[in-house]
């Protein structure tokens, strides 16, 4: 083999090697790019799905002490220790295919409500504070808010005595009170209406569980769905007046009724008030005694 041939061979092999390394570098770059793009696409899909999956359905309730839903999905590691430490076995972890974010704990009030253990074992078991350990008193729990959502079907609104929700409430008389209203249908009875108070209701769900209807008329909803919020600029005049000791609007305009001279009306002080002389010098063509009127009528008829 001549030198030239040798050189040619070596050059050729060098060229081959250079080409190969170039190719493999290109292949490496291409592969990396492919994996990176695939990963990014997958991430986009998973991230978007997670946003959807974190929308917690309204008919499910998180255990006491649970962080707000958007924080909860970042704190809960789905270990199920809360489920295990619940003495009443009312908590469950969401399985694949359920509407609740996979593996997170919840309960359904209508099936098994929270029994409000004083030592809150479910929250104490949580290793990540997804169920906050800062919750020391179960009465401070805010799992949701009970709402008497169907006033058409609730039998209290029909004038029937029920008050089951009021009686099962662990904070009876605070979270649910009974307010009496006139029964306009019968005209002589009262309606015993259960009223929920958000400053005391823990959202335990006992009222929803106990409601005697086939579908509960009172339901525990996530607080953000159940609760309205008055505009921050709103001031209630009578409260401001009470707070300040005097009216903030000067002069305090007095409500005036269009009444005959000397007649007064005050709702809080016995209603209509006639002037004292009016009672003595009655200048009316009609007698105040109904019997006299009746006699008068009879006389007219006999004539």
């Amino acid at each position, binding site marked *: 083999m001549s030198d030239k041939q040798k050189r040619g061979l070596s050059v050729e092999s060098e060229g081959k090697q250079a080409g190969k390394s170039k190719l493999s570098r290109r292949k490496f770059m291409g592969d990396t790019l492919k994996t990176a793009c695939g*990963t990014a696409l997958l991430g986009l899909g998973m991230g978007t799905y997670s946003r959807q999956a974190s929308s917690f359905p309204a008919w499910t309730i998180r255990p006491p002490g649970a962080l707000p839903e958007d924080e909860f999905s970042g704190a809960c590691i*789905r270990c199920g220790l809360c489920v295990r430490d619940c003495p009443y076995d009312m908590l469950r972890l969401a399985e694949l295919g359920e509407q609740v974010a996979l593996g997170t704990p919840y309960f359904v009030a209508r099936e098994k409500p929270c029994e409000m253990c004083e030592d809150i074992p479910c929250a104490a078991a949580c290793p990540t504070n997804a169920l906050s350990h800062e919750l020391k008193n179960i009465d401070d729990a805010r799992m949701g808010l009970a709402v008497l959502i169907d006033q058409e079907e609730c039998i209290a609104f029909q004038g029937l005595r029920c008050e089951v929700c009021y009686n099962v409430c662990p904070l009876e008389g605070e979270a649910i009170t009974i307010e009496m209203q006139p029964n306009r249908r019968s005209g002589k009875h009262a309606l015993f209406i259960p009223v929920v108070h958000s400053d005391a209701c823990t959202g335990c769900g006992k009222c929803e569980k106990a409601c005697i209807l086939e579908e509960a008329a009172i339901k525990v909803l996530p607080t953000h769905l159940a609760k309205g919020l008055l505009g921050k600029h709103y001031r209630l005049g009578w409260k401001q007046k009470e707070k300040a000791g005097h009216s903030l609007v000067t002069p305090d305009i007095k409500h005036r009724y269009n009444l005959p001279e000397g007649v007064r009306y005050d709702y809080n002080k016995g209603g209509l008030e006639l002037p004292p002389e009016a009672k003595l010098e009655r200048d009316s063509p009609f007698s105040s005694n109904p019997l006299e009127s009746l006699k008068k009528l009879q006389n007219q008829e006999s004539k």
Partner: protein
Amino acid sequence: MVKQTARNQFPGQQAIEKKGWWLAHKWLILRRMVQLGILALFLAGPLLDVWIVKGNLASSLTLEFLPLSDPYVMLQGLMSGHFPTTEGLIGVAIVLLFYALVGGRVYCSWVCPVNIVTDAAAWFRRKLGIKVSSQFSRSTRYWLLGLTLILPLITSAIVWELFNPVSLMFRGIIFGIGWAWMVILAIFAFDVFVSQRGWCGHLCPVGAFYSLLGHKSIVRVSAQKREQCDDCNDCFVVCPEPKVIRPALKGADKGISPLIDEANCTNCGRCIDVCDEDVFNFSSRFKD
């Protein structure tokens, strides 16, 4: 050639003939006993009302005393801005220490329930003689690991736990499976028909995390008697991460230690079982 194919379909035949059935399956059986034993401990509570361990692999409490927590899940929680409780931290520390010593991917081969599924898929694949396998990089899992740690940072939710087949399966068995069995079936089918060792060997970010954790672990498999190797190829056929064997087994000329010092070795010990020449054994980083 025909003989070689047959061998590859039935690796370990010679080991059974030479060492007996038990020694040719010892580590496999021990491994299955540990995997199923852990599941049984968790199941004893809800099924038999014997509460030794409660919770699941994400976090558990043993005998009302010993907390154990999965550092990977906790890290995802941390990325979404939530710090664990003291008990959670202690649990993480114990688990971190354990796997850093015995080998990170010991989690994969001795604990993870999906391993049983994918091992079954690999066995099935060999029996069916399926050779086609879609090729993608084994480093994909590290990309996915990065992704699962970045997503909580962006969405402030532990996104991966909505998908993670490992926790899905383990939690499913203990707390109720739902539709999760379909995911398990999908992984089995993927490993059999689409990609050889596709899930555990290429994609799973849980395994990727644990491989990084056990990067410098002490317990290692060693090809101590590599000069006895008769090139039967059985170890490569059964190994879930075949790339880790070659340097240790064939690197004598290049002065490479017989210790399989690869983070992706799962310490499953199947190579020890199927080798009829007793090339492999469990050893330690400090021995060789």
